[in-house]
């Protein structure tokens, strides 16, 4: 008796949890900022309410029975064990409900598939563990990594995530797109499968190595929308967020112009002071190297070699440059790393106390001599 009440109370609480689910962002699906995301949200709510409604019916009947049809109340068991009419009814009614659900679901699916007649296309490449964005129309092309603040906190066990703004949901360079334009995304991957998801856009899409997937969006209002990789892609799967910044057309055009100018600028090879080399070197390291060689340079036993005390790192400078540019079967080739960043990185890894190295030298950008012979 008392136990039934507890069970009932427990279930009422759960039902309330479902019922009030729309009240708060943290409880329910986001409505999002596109026509597609609204359509998906409405579909989600429709089916949620159908489930709540059926649940009340089924659980209500069951708990009425549990409460009244019990031996302790002297209830005598009936002996019926089938009823064809009832069984047909409870097969037909769910079928009709399913048909009712399938109609809006089909429409939403067809809408999600309409990638044609877009205003611009962006190629998104998933890599372990960052995103690479290439604007096929304007030629803008950049990598988007987890921001430095999150990177440092999650790698140093003494950091406090609560002090970082948008912890794990912030990047160094966000994907910038214009509002009110139909944008087609092309997804692929360089190594393993990744999946690109920004909840506010209403969908996610896998990025498969060797194949291209498509999806589209059109955002009404300017804003910043955040998401994450959702297909397990290895050690740092949890650390490759996505940030989309939607801005009005004129601001977007200005951004493209500015970004292209920077992109096409020749690398600045002027000398840098030791402290600048080291500080910038740390940024380059955090972006390109830390995922494998770790923040303390100790690597991961059995997976990634340590940089601390490594003869390759602290030995001959020219060989080190060539090694980083050429890569190995396990390490990607960093031949596209500009000379200034390479100089900063090398100075940093040879001398950073946090990596346990102290060679006591430095190299300036214009001294990067054994240039990788680029065939392209």
């Amino acid at each position: 008796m008392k136990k039934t009440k507890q069970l009932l109370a427990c279930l009422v609480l759960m039902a309330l949890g479902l019922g009030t689910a729309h009240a708060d962002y943290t409880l329910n699906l986001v409505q999002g900022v596109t026509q597609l995301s609204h359509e998906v949200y409405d579909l989600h709510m429709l089916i949620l309410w159908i489930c709540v409604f059926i649940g009340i019916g089924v659980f209500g009947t069951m708990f009425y029975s549990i409460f009244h049809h019990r031996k302790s109340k002297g209830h005598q068991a009936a002996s019926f064990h089938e009823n064809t009419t009832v069984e047909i009814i409870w097969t037909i009614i769910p079928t009709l409900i399913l048909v009712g659900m399938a109609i809006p679901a089909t429409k939403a699916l067809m809408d999600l598939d309409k990638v044609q007649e877009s205003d611009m296309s962006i190629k998104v490449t998933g890599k372990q563990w960052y995103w690479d964005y290439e604007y096929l129309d304007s030629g803008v092309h950049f990598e988007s990594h987890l921001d430095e603040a999150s990177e440092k906190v999650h790698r140093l066990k003494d950091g406090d995530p609560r002090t970082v703004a948008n912890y794990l949901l912030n990047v160094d360079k966000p994907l910038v797109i214009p509002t009110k334009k139909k944008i087609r995304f092309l997804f692929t991957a360089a190594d393993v499968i990744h999946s690109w998801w920004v909840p506010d856009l209403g969908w996610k899409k896998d990025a498969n190595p060797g194949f291209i997937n498509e999806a589209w969006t059109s955002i009404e209002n300017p804003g910043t929308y955040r998401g994450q990789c959702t297909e397990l892609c290895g050690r740092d799967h949890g650390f490759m967020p996505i940030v989309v910044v939607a801005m009005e057309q004129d601001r977007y055009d200005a951004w493209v112009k500015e970004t292209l100018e920077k992109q096409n600028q020749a690398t600045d090879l002027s000398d840098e002071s030791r402290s600048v080399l080291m500080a910038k070197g740390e940024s380059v390291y955090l972006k390109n190297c830390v995922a494998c060689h770790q923040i303390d340079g100790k690597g991961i036993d059995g997976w990634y070699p340590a940089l601390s005390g490594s003869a390759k790192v602290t030995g001959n400078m020219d060989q080190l440059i060539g090694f980083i540019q050429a890569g190995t079967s396990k390490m990607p080739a960093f031949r596209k790393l500009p000379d200034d960043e390479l100089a900063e990185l090398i100075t940093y890894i040879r001398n950073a106390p946090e990596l346990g190295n102290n060679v006591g030298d430095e190299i300036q950008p214009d001294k990067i001599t054994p240039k990788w012979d680029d065939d392209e």
Partner: protein
Amino acid sequence: MSAVVAEHDDHHDHHDHGPEKGFLRWIITTNHKDIGTMYLVFALIMFFVGGTMALIIRSELFEPGLQFVDPQFFNSMTTMHALVMVFGAVMPAFVGLANWMIPMMIGAPDMALPRMNNMSFWMLVAGVLLLASTLFMEGGAPAAGWTLYPPLVLQTGKAFPFAIFSVHLLGISSIMGAINVIATIFNMRAPGMTLMKMPLFVWTWLITAFLLIAIMPVFAGAVTMLLTDRFFDTSFFDAAGGGDPVLYQHIFWFFGHPEVYVMILPTFGVASTIIPVFARKPLFGYASMVYATGAIAFLSFIVWAHHMFTVGLPVAGELYFMYATMLIAIPTGVKVFNWTATMWKGSMTFETPMLFSIAFVVLFTMGGFTGLMMSVAPSDFQYHDTYFIVAHFHYTLVPASIFILMAAGYYWLPKWTGHMYNEKIGQLHFWLSAISVNILFFPQHFLGLAGMPRRIPDYAIQFADWNMVSSIGAFIYGFSQLLFVYIVIDTIRGGTGEKVTDEVWEDAAKHGLEWTVPSPAPYHTFTTPPAVIPTEHF
């Protein structure tokens, strides 16, 4: 044959074979009860091994930031937790129940293929130990998820071929177990035990066994292709050589979707066995239960790509898999309605097995609802690979399969041991489990909808509160399960001291043959077939 031999009654040739003395009894036994016991004990141990891994995961997720484990080890834990729970705990537990109960339910003296029965158990042990040994190998245990998707799984360290070989062993063990179940049910039923008079547990296992035989070779094939891709330069799943990583997902889920029904169909069977006994009414809609089970099994083969809505299927394919998946709601609904109708106008009592069974019906239905939500492809684009699906499948596995395994334990323990378990502690175990399992998994719905991907070791601050709640639930749930171990040991050693009857539960003999033999069940039962077939369950 036995009739002829019985003519020359010679007691020296015909003494009743008891178990082998000492430790050897367990190594070489061919007795279905001994093997059933070994399966069940092994499954319980693995339940705690897999549970420990789950608690490592929940500890890391208790707070944002990385506190305890390396992300790679975290990924190994999610992978191994799933593999151990699926192949080491839930499946063996149901095979254990099948071994113990199917012969006793159909009035057979033993399983049809007793030596193979022994072999399939020890291969399971070998397979799981091999899998566990990968934890100590260079590069760590597999960390690509239990689905072992390429190309990521090809980055596994030294553990890779060992994990695949262990999957082969587990598959062979499962197939042998399934063959045994089918051979037993088709050949060894007592006279009068027609197919449509079999208890639902036997029916669901028969269908499950066919599923296993159909799917395990597919899985073995898929992982062998991974093996050749890595070591013998094939390119099944590598686009650079003309292959396709998505091909693996199609093959895997052709196995994987029926596989989840391998874990849930016997669950349905046990629930359909227990609920009528405590409602003191025949099962409602016996025939429709059988047909619904068959329909679910059939549908399980044609819906696999609903696990892959976001991989980039053509829209026609997505529509087909969406419609086909929605259909599963119909036979599943029939089952839930039938259980409710069985309780309706019954004369119910609420012993621990019944409590777990009722909680199963309610909480499995919740898992069914979220399953229905995810069958809708456009919505699944949002739910896929988030904590929403983690909540969904844990609702269909923990408060469903695991709860029913607990119910089965309480229900049949008196028959197995001859002693009554402690009802008070049993009910305490139930209430702690039923409440904590919801604290553990219900908030994960919120996390998924709010945007938290699955399989991440660290998360954004807005997910912190519900993760903490979920972790607290996990620890309460995990530690309450120790009560079950206590109860099992206590019952074996005498329990409440109360002498249990053959029937154990009121009028149970009307529902199943196992209640017509003495408690504890003697080493050999039904050496002569039963005269009367119980009729209350159909």
